[in-house]
């Protein structure tokens, strides 16, 4: 409980400094629902709480509903319920790229606006996708970051979330592509392991990687759950300092490992900002400020003006790389 209050407090503090003078063109009184991959997940709690706070800014009421376990089908009943409740917009982080599309289409057919965030669905199932960062950039930047730290040589592995996670698989695709470039000729990707976004499983998978590949030099874990579990394993093992770990993690979870030298650097966007962006995108769609076409733009409170790219993608911004020098400035 205490932690949660802290997180919300942090998000609130960030917003307080930059309250928008006006919420450009957004109608008041909208209802916007956030449907994360699963509730009871700290990452989504941060994102959705910020999104709900954003709704308040422009006079809408926001809420978070969702399943307690991440599975393709578990989100469907919530989509149906939201349709029955006649919410004006659904912001969804999809557990499955395709499985939800028919249901979201049905929602859109009834006039409900659908914005995906964090994890996209197929474009047919939503009007906009608020991407934490350009997928290609995330994938390639992770490899670049690791390459620099291990002098572009040696075996590396990836510790992912579930085998079917949409965003992770997209990033991994770009990672593999990046590795084909000549500067990575001496780097070899030996395994993609799956921690299922489960702390325990990620922890033991990391153990396994260390055993199976004695010459492993680096690990990329593009998931907040995986990277913190991996860091925790390394910090108390003899491999600490010998194996380089990076990935996508939250500063709060990773602070200790940056400070004790287990991890040199990792990256992430601000999940709160992502929820905030999704809320504004949904509000603008509902108010007719935008329709979702490429090239349109909308005001997004403290994040300023945002424009829509190809395929209805709105990008939050480049990743922030966290290391010893800057980690204490971030609290989420």
């Amino acid at each position: 409980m205490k932690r949660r209050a802290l997180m919300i407090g942090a998000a609130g503090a960030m917003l307080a400094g930059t309250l928008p003078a006006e919420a450009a063109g957004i109608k008041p009184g909208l209802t916007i629902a956030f449907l994360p991959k699963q509730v009871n997940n700290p990452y989504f709690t941060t994102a959705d709480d910020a999104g709900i706070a954003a709704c308040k800014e422009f006079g809408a009421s926001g809420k978070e509903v969702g399943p307690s376990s991440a599975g393709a089908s578990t989100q469907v009943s919530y989509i149906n319920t939201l349709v029955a409740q006649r919410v004006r917009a659904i912001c969804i982080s999809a557990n499955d790229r395709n499985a939800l599309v028919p249901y979201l289409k049905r929602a859109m057919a009834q006039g409900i606006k659908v914005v995906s965030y964090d994890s996209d669905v197929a474009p047919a199932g939503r009007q906009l996708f608020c991407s934490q960062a350009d997928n290609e950039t995330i994938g390639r930047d992770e490899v670049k970051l690791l390459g620099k730290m291990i002098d572009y040589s040696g075996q590396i592995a990836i510790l992912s979330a579930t085998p079917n996670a949409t965003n992770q698989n997209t990033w991994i695709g770009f990672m593999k592509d990046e590795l084909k470039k000549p500067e990575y000729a001496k780097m070899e990707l030996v395994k993609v392991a799956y921690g299922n976004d489960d702390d325990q499983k990620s922890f033991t998978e990391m153990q396994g990687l260390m055993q199976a590949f004695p010459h492993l030099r680096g690990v990329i874990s593009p998931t907040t759950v995986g990277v913190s579990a991996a860091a925790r394993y390394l910090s108390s093992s003899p491999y600490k300092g010998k194996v380089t770990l990076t990935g996508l993690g939250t500063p709060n979870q990773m602070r200790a490992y940056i400070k004790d030298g287990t991890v040199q650097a990792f990256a992430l966007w601000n999940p709160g900002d992502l929820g905030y962006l999704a809320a504004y995108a949904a509000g603008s769609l509902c108010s007719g400020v935008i329709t979702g076409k490429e090239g349109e733009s909308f005001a997004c409170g403290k994040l300023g003006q945002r424009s829509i790219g190809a395929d209805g993608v709105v990008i939050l911004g480049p990743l922030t790389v966290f290391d010893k020098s800057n980690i204490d400035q971030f609290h989420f």
Partner: protein
Amino acid sequence: MAEMLAPLRRWEVVIWLLVLLALFLGSFLSPAFLTADNLGNLAANLSEIALMALTSTMVIVAGEIDLSVASALGMCSCLLGLLWSLHVPIALAMLAALIAGALAGAFNGVLVTWLGLPSLAVTIGTLALYRGLAFGLLGDKAVADFPTFFTNLGFGTVMGTALPNPMVLFFLLAVLTILVLHATPFGRALYAIGANPVAATFAGLPVLRHKFLLFVLSGAMSGLAGIVYTARFSSARGDNAEGFVLPVVAAVLLGGISIFGGKGSVIGVIAAVFLIGILQNALALIDVSNDILTIVTGSLLIASVLGPNLAAAVESRLERRALPGGRRRQPRRENEA
């Protein structure tokens, strides 16, 4: 006729009343509840669990249990996806999924009947085994590009109404199950087998063959549910229907089927499936979180057995009080497995 209706007397009535109560409460709490679309969606969401609950009912009546149903569903879904991605015609792929399900059930059946292993242990094993095979078949891939007519089978509704296609399938199979279990020699035999397999053997009933058949049916039903699932979500992945097994068992038990076999009716189980679905939907409509539903489901499950037991205890206490010098001490035998 009274004979036929006898099993419907007690808990089945209670649970149908609960369903009505839930319907009433739902419509009272949210105007969106009692609409054709909402009820249709509510029902569609129950498809796979409802289907698997039918065969699980028969398995549990016969004194066994099948915990591998959801894993077998996932495996069949993956096989369907894999075959489709290899350009096998969809009808053939569906057939293969059904057969794979039946084979998975047959494997359980062989271990339980030929080797005489306890089904609880066997199906905990195959629960892991079939899930592993599901991931083995498709790995991190997901097959999604199924043909529209196929996905419509799962996603569509019956011409112009809100009745989802899978529910039609379910109602047909439910009627069939009711008839088989409550009005055929096979059904009669299952109750005897569940209540006392030794006596059933001595009466010349083919106990092992019936049990084997039940596991095959249960597996085939997982295959069918796998096809429905794949069609409904247009998606075949290794983790399909993960976590569905406990809801299936919970629905069967909540429906009044004794875990020791030999008692209960499908009619109660159907009510239980819908009760859980209605509660889930109604609570979600009034923005009550899923946590509460979890607690309510668990409590209902316990209440389904505890309620009748307490009622019986109170009844016998009252009877005893009517006698002079009433005392009460009688060992209960519910716990004997």
